[in-house]
Structure formats: structure tokens, C-alpha cells
């Protein structure tokens, strides 16, 4: 398939990109293109103008900034995987990124692109939510910071405005005693998640001191499994206790039905996978 004709702009800075977004008409940002280009080729999207962020160098790279690590929006999944800072301070991101699609996609697709696309079956939104990440967004009025909990608004919809660019993501470092795991369930290795669970727990001996759990594809947006977190916190990291806590995983979710799973099965999977993810994060699997 061939996309419909479009104008093409390739800025070299965030300011230029923001400027290009003010050009009028239907304008879309192109990051790694792993979702957007297929959609254009199928003519499910036919923007007037495509703004390609591929040459905006300031959007790439990962750095340390005090208690956080900062990941540039145009950093590819492959670069995230290779990064020692991410592995040390936010290993959940590394583990989830390893499950994304295939090697070719991971070399083109970007961290920020996956978050801004906000596919409910995408893996990184739930991870960002579980890690209490903050998104830095640039617009004509300057920059603002939006916490992950307020970033994902609906199916394929985020807090990034039509004239704004997601610049970078600040991920608070996890301190000592934390373990994490991303439990992904799909039918073939390179497919989207049917359900995914991002879990991070801090152990104090055999007790779970803190727990963060977020769910992929259990609603039109990633869902924080707050009831599970509450049930886990202060309890033992035992199989029985975790299973009991994971039974709350379905609370507050609104999964869809599709070819791979009806909603009730997704609900069941959320419970099973939450149990597994938490136990793995706690090193108890």
C-alpha cells in the first residue's frame, strides 16, 4: 500500500518542530514510525503534513539528573536496552523493552513514540505508570511536566496537545531493595500484549514494603492496580499472600474483547499474570 500524498517537514530542533506544528491543517509527528507508517500505508491516517523528528538530536539520549534518569523521547528501544543507567535504576523498562516486537522494530521504534502513541496493548505505558514517570512536553508556550497518571487520557490519546512535542521522560530511580518484572502474555513472540503486567516491589526481608503494579491492555489506558498494591504492602512476599492480593487485579479495569481474548478471560489473565509478575519481581518465582 502507498500512503496518500503529504507534505514533509524535517526539523533539527525541538523549537523548529513546535513551530512546524503550528503550520495548520492535519499535522502528525513521525518518531520511529513503527505504528504510524503502517497506519498511513493502510490509509487509516492521511495527514496533510508529517513532521519527522528523526533529525532532532536533542531528543535522543539518556542521562542522569539527580534522583531521576531522563530518557529522550527519540531514544530507540535498542538504545534503551543497551543503557546501563536504565538497567541500574529502572530495570523494569529494560525488561519490558526486551519484549517489544522484534529486533528490527526495536532499532527503529522509540521510547517516546511508544508512549505518545498510547496503544493500550503497548508495553511501555504501563511501565511508565508503574514507575511514576513524568513526561516533559514542549509547546509554543514553553515546557510543562505531566505525571504518567495524568498523561494517558484515552485510547491512542495523551496529554500531548496537537501543537506539542513529547521531549523527554523523567523516571525516578528505584532505590535499594527494589525488584521488578514485566510479565507479558501473547500468542506469538512478536505480537502485542493480550495482557501485560508491570510490577516493582521493594522488599524488607520477607515483607513487601512497597509495591507498584500497572496493567497493559486492561482498559483503553494503562491501569494502576491500586487495590493489588494496597493488599501487597506490608504483607509477606509469599505465594499465598501474593495470589490473594493479585485477585484484586481486575478491579477498576475495563478490558475489551477481541480475537485473542474476551473481556472475562482478560480479567482472569490479569490476576494470574499479576501474581506471577509480583512473585518474579520479589525474586520468589
Amino acid at each position, binding site marked *: 500500500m*502507498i500512503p496518500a500524498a503529504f507534505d514533509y517537514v524535517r526539523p533539527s530542533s525541538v523549537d523548529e518542530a513546535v513551530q512546524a506544528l503550528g503550520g495548520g491543517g492535519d499535522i502528525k509527528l513521525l518518531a520511529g514510525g513503527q505504528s504510524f507508517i503502517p497506519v498511513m500505508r493502510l490509509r487509516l491516517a492521511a495527514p496533510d503534513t508529517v513532521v519527522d523528528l528523526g533529525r532532532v538530536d536533542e531528543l535522543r539520549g539518556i542521562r542522569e539528573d539527580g534522583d531521576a534518569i531522563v530518557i529522550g523521547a527519540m531514544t530507540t528501544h535498542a538504545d534503551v536496552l543497551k543503557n546501563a543507567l536504565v538497567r541500574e535504576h529502572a530495570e523494569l523498562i529494560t525488561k519490558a523493552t526486551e519484549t517489544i516486537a522484534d529486533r528490527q522494530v526495536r532499532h527503529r521504534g522509540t521510547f517516546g513514540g511508544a508512549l505518545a502513541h498510547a496503544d493500550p496493548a503497548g508495553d511501555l505505558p504501563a511501565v511508565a505508570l508503574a514507575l511514576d514517570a513524568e513526561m516533559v512536553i514542549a509547546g509554543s508556550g514553553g515546557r510543562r511536566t505531566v505525571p504518567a497518571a495524568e498523561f494517558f487520557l484515552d485510547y491512542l490519546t495523551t496529554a500531548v496537545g496537537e501543537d506539542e512535542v513529547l521531549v523527554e521522560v523523567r523516571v525516578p530511580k528505584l532505590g535499594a531493595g527494589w525488584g521488578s518484572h514485566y510479565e507479558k502474555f501473547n500468542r506469538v513472540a512478536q505480537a502485542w500484549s493480550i495482557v501485560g503486567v508491570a510490577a516493582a516491589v521493594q522488599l524488607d526481608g520477607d515483607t513487601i514494603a512497597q509495591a507498584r503494579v500497572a496493567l497493559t491492555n486492561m482498559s483503553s489506558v494503562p491501569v494502576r492496580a491500586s487495590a493489588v498494591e494496597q493488599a501487597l504492602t506490608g504483607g509477606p512476599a509469599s505465594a499465598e499472600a501474593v495470589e490473594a492480593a493479585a485477585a484484586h487485579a481486575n478491579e477498576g479495569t475495563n478490558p475489551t474483547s477481541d*480475537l*485473542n481474548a474476551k473481556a472475562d478471560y482478560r480479567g482472569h489473565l490479569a490476576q494470574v499474570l499479576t501474581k506471577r509478575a509480583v512473585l518474579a519481581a520479589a525474586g520468589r518465582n
Partner: protein
Amino acid sequence: MTVTEERPTGEVGRARLRKEDARLITGQTNWTDNISVPGLLHLALLRSPSAHAKITSIDVEAAKARPGVIAVFTGKDFAEEQGSIPCAWTVTPDMVNPGHPSLAVDEVKHAGEAVAVVVARDKSAAQDALEHIDVDYDTLPVVLDMEAAVADGADKVHANTEGNRSYSFVFESGAAGTGGSTDEAFNDAEVVVSRRFIQQRLIPAFMEPRSTVVQPVGEGFTMWTATQIPHILRVMLSLTLGIPEHKMRVIAPDVGGGFGGKLQVTPEEFICALVSRRLGKPVKYTESRSESLMTAHHGRDQIQYIDIAAKRDGTVTGLKVRLLADMGAYLRLLTPVVPVIGAFVFPAIYKFPAYRFQCDGVFTNKAPTDAYRGAGRPEATFGIERIMDELAAELDMDPMELRRKNWITHEEFPFTTVVGMVYDSGNYEAATDKALQMMGWDALRAEQKQRRQSNDPVQLGLGISTFTEMCGLAPSRVVGSLGAAAGGWEQASVRMLPTGMVEVVTGASPHGQGHVTSFSQIVADQLGVPFEHVGVVHGDTSSSHKGLDTYGSRSLVVGGIALVKAAEKVVEKAKRVAAHLLEASEDDLDFKDGSFSVRGTPDSKLSIQEIAFATFSGHNLPDGMEPSLDSDATFDPENFSFPHGTHLCATEVDTETGSVRIRKYVCVDDIGEVINPMIVEGQVHGGLAQGIAQALYEEAVYDEDGNLTTGSFVDYLVPSALDLPYFDTDRTTTAATSNPLGVKGVGEAGTIASTPAVVNAVLDAVRHKGVTDILMPMTPERVWRAIHESSDGGERAAEGSIAYSATSDAEESAL
């Protein structure tokens, strides 16, 4: 790879690297879509969004006015001229074929059917113009479910037919005289087990999308096309479009896979030819992946009602099979015969005394079905291997013991089956014993028992498929008697070039199999020349003038034998020249390692390559001899060949999520003699992948309006290497007696055998939980529902899907 070989002395049997590969994997390829000719125009097809509708109007004016657009045609523009896509097999004398337009004229019968074609200077212009064609449709009732389609008063796919049945093919062994009366067998049966199985619809999913270029050349045309069958296509284009056959040249350049999906005479090929002829210009059409999934023919799609009769001791006494086979909306080249092939395969390796087979071809508003790797044999093998397991469960017998009790023993060959097939050779005991040993069967059984006792969330299951198939299509007389329009011979030429090189011409047109390599090995041995000195010409009707192409695991078993016969003729001619030059009697000559020598005087010898030059010069030949060693042969086999094997699968079923993991897969195939063990290994691996994919991953799903829901590879799940297990493969060798190479064919065996091995294994893992069937593909959700809701998982799909609903326990017996 666990194959152990004795080191062969000749080329045959050597794991030669493929001659094709260096070129193919370094991009020096010649795909149809790479081909360009001066003045080439590009086509784009507007496809119906509706599965069944009357076309009330089409307005193409706006599209015609678009920049770069040369012309826009609709079905009306070619209404008479286009004729019908040909169907080459009339399975019953009263078979109903409603005709198959390439461009829909008044009605569309399935979503994706072409209704208009844009011709433009470039592909983008053609694609853009599609959005400016305005079509009004009056939708008609959609027929999707075969059981509903054959009920009284059902809505019809074709207004001009009586109902939705195309044909009803019946075989009964009592009536045919090949066995006893099936009714009597069932009346006398001590045990009868009846089941209804579903063979889901699959998509061949070849890697290279279909593509066609047509160029007018003088009064004729050259067509390059991604096809398995350039020779058959040429005949069909000539017969249907009235282009004199000698003015139609068809070329299959590099073809990137087919799996039966390019064993077709396609509407798109016809449209290219029609447009090129109308405009007198060269044109190209290359489909998108979406178009390919939606409109290239699909495969499988049967409902199988199977009854098996047996004695309490496990001796089988009768088999009844009734199939509803989905034809889709139209009959294409081999649509009706694919399920009918099952008639000859269902009895498999077992000694059934009585057998009845009925297949009803049913029209629905879906893409036409046709050949897909195995074509009729995977379906039948699935049915028989599944029902054998069900019978074993009913009798509380070990499933392998039940098979041993009923299979043909190796002393009993040649064996005439209940359907009249003569199996020339085989040794099921040897393949099975080897497979069981490789599997570590007893240890896995012990682990299974332990997991059951401890109620492990991960249960283990063991599955068996002791399959045979019939391939090497085909003895012309046999297929002729069954309604085929053509025969099943194959043609080969062997040319000795002046420099001693050998040029082999084959009518078997490859699309990834490695013909050039295997055929070089055969001819190198036959003529005693180096492997590197043999070249193979194929796939162009002007250079490879005669052939019946590649499908049905026939290229080696039929085409390879033609090569042997042609090479033998070359040697005979060369011998005459050798005798003349060596001044000896032909009777005193030995031919060994490529040289003729006079018996008793070993120094007096001439190589066949030297003789080739002597013949080329023509200076000194026997009186009356033509100066040529070149020879042709056309080989028509006297029988099919019957590869067999034992496939064993161990699966782990996660009862908490329903997901299935293949723990170990062992197959021991007996494909007769082997030309190139590495190519064989590749065929087995690829075949296993596709058979396992049917069991676990792939399904073409339509929604209630007849739209293909699995319209991209996001939803139509083709597994990758990451999803498949290590394959433990080995072979036993029982040479075929029906051909001089002793070969049987291997292109489809893996696909045919593996599906029931996997399904039987999954059921074996959860049968103790009350599960007796799970629909394919055995998705995690289906498996989970089967375990926790005591169903076959059929209700798993989202609303709107017409994935077959759960069945009550085989309420409808075969007949």
C-alpha cells in the same frame, strides 16, 4: 539436525549447499515486481467492501480525470471478453460451477472481489485514483456458515444455482468392490465413536505477494508472474482469452514461496492480460499484503463428521466420513478437488474393511479456497489421527497400541487399501520404534503421571500422528478418471553443450524448493559429470516449453524421474559415439564415472564431456547418426507415492492461562531415498512450522458481515522461529518401488503429519479434566475455556466473529 548419513559416493545423498542461495540471499533476485519494461503502466484494483451485494452503479469519471490516470475499467467493460476463471477438475458429472468473473460485473460474492481497475503512469497515481471511484452497492444476505448454507431455505450465494451445494462426491467400498458394506460394518460394530471436527480456514501466507507484468509483443504477449504454474497458466490464458498458445509466453521468474497459494490462475493475472490487450500497453499489478490475505485463495475450511466402528479389542471394522467443504464464493483452478483428495487418504495406514466417504462442496460468501500445502491430505490425516485417539480413549486403550493393532505391517506391502489405493512400500513399525526411542516416550509418560497426581498447574500431554499421504501427482490415467482436465506427467530435457557442460530443462517450475540443486545432483550422477557442470533451466514457457509445474510434492517424484529417463537417453546416444570413436562394439563398453571404456582395456576411454564436443563438431560420427546427444523424456508415473512417518509431540499446557508450549517434537519420516538431506531437512522444518501453526496459531476469521477480521499479520498469526520448538528429526528409508530413484516426495509431509500430533498432545494433557476436543487453533483462551468451562472453546471469540460455535457432542453422525 540428528540425521546420520553414510557418506555417499556420488552426488545423490550429499547435503549440498543450494546453488540458488548465494544469489537469493544477496539480493540479486529477479522478482516479478522488480521487472520493468519501457512504457510500463501500473494497475490498482478497487475491491468490494461488501461480501454479497448487487452493484447498482459505478462512477469512474472522477478517477479518470485524476493526474496520471490512463484508463479506468469496470467489469462491464470486460463482461464477455473475460470469460470465467477456469476450474480444471470436475469432481462429479453434475458439479455446479457458477462461473468466476475476474472483475465483478453485476454482483460481488465476497469481500475483496475486484470491481474496477485503474491504469495509471505510476503506482501512486493508480492507488490515489481508487478513492475517486464511486460504487453503489445493494447488499444481499451473506452466507457464511456451511451447516446453515446447506439447510433447506438457506440464503444463496449464487442466484443462478439451485442451492449452495456445488457437488456431492460419494465413495462406498461395498459399492466400489474395494471392501465391505459400510452399513453392515456399523450395524455389526461393538463400539462406534462419532465426532465432529473443524478444519479452520487458513491463508497460505507466502512471503512474496503476487505480482504480474504483461507486455504486448507483436501479436502476442509475454507475462511475468509470481506463479507455481507457468505452463498450466499459459494453456488457461489461451483457452479463456483466445490468445493463440504459441503467441503467449509465460515466465515465472524468482518466485518467493507459494505453498499452493500460487497454484492458481488468478483474477489479477487475467485482469493484467485483459487490460494490456485492450490498451496495447505493458502493465504491472502487485498486490499489497492486505489484498493478498483477503483475496488470494485460502485453504482448508471443512467440517468433518467422522464415525469409526471397532471391536472391543480395538480392531477397527469401519469408517464413515462426511465432509462439508467450503469452496468460498467461486470455484478456482482446483477448488472442488482439494477436499475430495481426502477420500483416498482417510483410511491412512489402517486396515479398514469397510469405508464410506462423502464430500459436499459448499458455496459461501468468502474468498475461494484451493490448494494449501498438503491440499486434502492434512485435513484427512487430522480427521483419522484424531478419531483414532478418540477411539483409544473410548476403549481405554493406549493410542499407540491401537494404531499398532490396525496398521498395515511391513510384510503386507504392496497393500491395496479399502479405497483401492495400492501402497507400494512402507515400514510403519520401524519409523515408530525409532521415534519412540528418540522421544524418550516412557520417561515422558512417567512425568505426565506424576504431574497429574500432584495436580501441577502445568500438565503434560503426549500426541501421536502415524501418518501416510499420497503424493507425486500424478498418474494421468488415474486423475483423468477422477475428472481432471489434464494429466500428471512431467517433462525434462538434458542437453550436452559443446564444452561438456550440461543444461537441464525441467517443466517443474520451482518457487523456493531448490530444484536447481537437487536436479543437478541427479543429473551429475546419471552422466558422471561434476555437480558444478550442470545448469537447470526452468520457469519460462519459451525455454522450458513443456511441463505441468510444481505442487503436490511432485517435482522430484515425477520431474526428477523424467530427468533420469532423459539422461539415460543421452548416455545411450553417447555410447554409440563412444563405440565409434573407440572402435569397439557398444556391447563391450562400460560407462562409469562419466567415461566409456572398453572392457579389458581400461586405458582406452572417453568421457561423456569429450564425446559432447565430438558430437558438436560432427566430424566423425557413426553413419546416419544425428549430431546431437540431447534428449527429452516425458514421465508419467504408474502410481502415486506414499511417504509415511511417525510424529510425536509433547506439550505442556499451563492450566492457569491455557497457553500451550511444545516441549519436544520428534519426527521420523520415511520419504524413500533422499537426494539432498539438507533440502529434505528444510522441507520438514518448514512443513512442521505450518502444520503446528494450524494447530496453535493460524485462522482466517470472518465477521458476521463477511469481512476478513484477520486481515493483517497482526491478527493472522504466523509463528516465527521464536514460537517453535527444536525439531528432533530423523528418517527411515523404505525405497519406493514405483520409480527408479526410489523417492517418494517430502514437500508436504511435515504439514500433513504435524497438526494432529500437536492437537492430540494438548488433549492428552487435559483429557483427565473432561476435555475431549478443543477447536483449532488451540489458542490460550480456547484451551482455558475448555478446561474451566468444559467446552471445546468454540465460544471464545469476540462478538461478531463467526468462528465456529461449540458443538454438542457430535449430535450429527457422519451419515
